[in-house]
């Protein structure tokens, strides 16, 4: 029942086979790692999140509990929850996501069997092209 | 206002259009019929006066006699009694419809009715009350109409031709009205008590049908037939077995049987509404 349109978190497309609350947690991690959510930033209430993501409030609750347990967000008293300012945790989120993606990448190119220097060169070129493209694209 | 009264008001409200139509119809049929009858009677009187060279109404009255309000109404049957019989038939039909209408339609109201946070017997009492109010209301309406009709009778007829008759004596002589409007309080209690009992028996039959559906149709019919048989039993004993009962014994027996049927109907209805009814 919440119509507020502007949001710092977009609506993710969930898959039905992984626990929804873990998908929510992962969604937050991505937003934190990509800077959409900044250290110390207030995040939507559990109820707003449920409405925005079309999930049931219990699931939202569970996701927040998980994020609190992992130290991603902090809640003091009745104040709204905030993204942690703990650089160690934030850094770990980036490392974790990168490690996850690299693992997936490695798994998929493994069969091709390129020497690692060649592979790294290709990755480097592609990565730099994308990054410079991003910069030119900005006004 | 408690929930029972609210339900009564709602039941009255749900039928008021048809009810008002019945009242209007009764009025139009009786009043209009009487008006036309009186007019044609006067034409007839004048015709005869001319033919028989009678110079005034007094002379006519002397020769042919005046006509009472009662004879006027009997001249205009069925316009006078038919609407009354129609009202009775409509109410009898509504004894069934007051229940069935809740189940009918694409949005059956019975879901809501049975889910009201009140004893389901309140639904029952409200429907029973509504039926009794409808009956008494129509009788009352008729009692309002009689003086009106009589006023029409007196105003249209020349004094020489009119006969003064009281409403009571008219009712007392009329075959239908003498039952509908009893002269004594005891009769009133007996007649309307019997009517009330009949309605509860019919309600019970409906609820048996609504609870057991297909099998319930047979059950409902059996219950109604058994009740009728019970009420006829004293008479059957008298006629059939030749076991003579004094009239007051028969009467007392009828009252007792009626009371037992009333209690039984209420008990069965209560059980069905609370335990067996199905949407």
């Amino acid at each position, binding site marked *: 029942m919440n119509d507020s349109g502007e949001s710092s978190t977009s609506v993710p497309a969930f898959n039905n086979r992984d626990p929804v609350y873990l998908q929510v947690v992962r969604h937050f991690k991505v937003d934190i790692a990509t800077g959409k959510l900044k250290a110390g930033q207030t995040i939507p209430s559990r*109820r707003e999140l449920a409405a925005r993501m079309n*999930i049931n409030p*219990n*699931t939202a609750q569970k996701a927040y509990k998980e994020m609190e347990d992992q130290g991603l967000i902090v809640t003091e008293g009745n104040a709204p929850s905030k993204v942690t300012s703990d650089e160690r945790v934030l850094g770990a989120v980036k490392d974790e996501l990168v490690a996850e993606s690299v693992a997936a990448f490695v798994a998929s190119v493994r069969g091709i069997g390129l020497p690692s220097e060649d592979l790294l060169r290709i990755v480097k070129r592609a990565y730099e092209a994308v990054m410079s493209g991003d910069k030119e694209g900005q006004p | 206002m408690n929930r029972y009264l*609210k339900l009564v008001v709602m039941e009255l409200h749900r039928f008021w259009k048809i009810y008002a139509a019945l009242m209007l119809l009764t009025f139009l049929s009786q009043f209009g019929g009487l008006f036309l009858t009186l007019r044609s009677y006067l034409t007839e009187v004048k015709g005869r006066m001319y033919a028989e060279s009678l110079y005034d109404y007094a002379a006519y009255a002397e020769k042919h006699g005046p006509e009472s309000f009662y004879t006027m109404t009997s001249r205009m049957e069925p316009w006078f009694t038919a609407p009354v019989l129609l009202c009775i038939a409509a109410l009898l039909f509504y004894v069934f419809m007051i229940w069935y209408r809740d189940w009918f339609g694409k*949005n059956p109201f019975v*879901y809501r009715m049975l889910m009201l946070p009140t004893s389901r017997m309140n639904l029952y009492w409200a429907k029973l009350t509504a039926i009794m109010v409808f009956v008494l209301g129509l009788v009352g309406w008729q009692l309002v109409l009689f003086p009106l009709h009589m006023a029409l009778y007196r105003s249209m007829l020349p004094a020489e031709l009119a006969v003064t008759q009281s409403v009571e004596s008219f009712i007392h002589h009329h075959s239908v009205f003498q039952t509908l409007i009893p002269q004594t309080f005891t009769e009133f209690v007996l007649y309307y008590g019997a009517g009330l009992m009949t309605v509860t028996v019919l309600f019970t039959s409906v609820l048996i049908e609504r609870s057991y559906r297909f099998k319930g149709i047979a059950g409902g019919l059996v219950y109604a037939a058994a009740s009728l048989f019970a009420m006829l039993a004293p008479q059957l004993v008298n006629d059939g077995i030749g076991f003579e009962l004094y009239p007051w014994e028969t009467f007392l027996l009828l009252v007792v049987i009626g009371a037992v049927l009333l209690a039984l109907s209420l008990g069965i209805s209560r059980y069905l509404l609370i335990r067996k009814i199905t949407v």
Partner: protein
Amino acid sequence: MIEAVRATKKFGRKTVLRNLSMTAEKGQITCLIGINGAGKSTLLKAIMGLTPLSGGQIRIDGAPIGKAVYEKVAFVPDTLPMPPSMTVADSLQFMGDYYSNWNAKRASDLLVFFRLNVSDRISSLSKGNAAKLNLLHGLSLDTDYVLMDEPFSGIDLFSREQIASVFTSDLIEGRGVILTTHEIGEIEHLIDKAVLLDQGEVRREFMCEEMRMAEGKSVIDVMREVYRA
């Protein structure tokens, strides 16, 4: 908690519920899933005392059903049970008249949210609007439980979305919800617990997140297993 304990229901020779036992907790959304005729609606009606069981029993917070149920559990059937001549406003008045736990404030909020017109007659409402008004009647009662029979069935996409948003809101927070559906599709993420019915029997009863966690299966995966077997 709402419990069905070995509930059996027969219509003549046909058995609609067969020794059916299940539970629905307060604070959770429990979804009864099954094809038409699986016994979903009959189970809801039996819980509400709208049809008698042939065997077994229903318990609500440990107590058997009685008239107190109607202030504790709200039922939204698959039709809007109001006389066609009533207006939307009349129907709200009616609810407020009879239910001591009627929440008029919430009713008027929902009226705005669902964009319903108070002067419309029940008989003139579209299917979607009738479903919304029906839901409004049920949700505006301050009850511990809400039962809904096919709240998404046969209505347009936008109405469906509006109704789905009810499940993610504070309207049902803390309450126990049982809803029925014959297709889980778009509401898979909304529910806590799934009860798969087939021919009047419970074939599977599980918590959705636990199922995803432990077996990596979606509700639809489990349905495939159960109904294809």
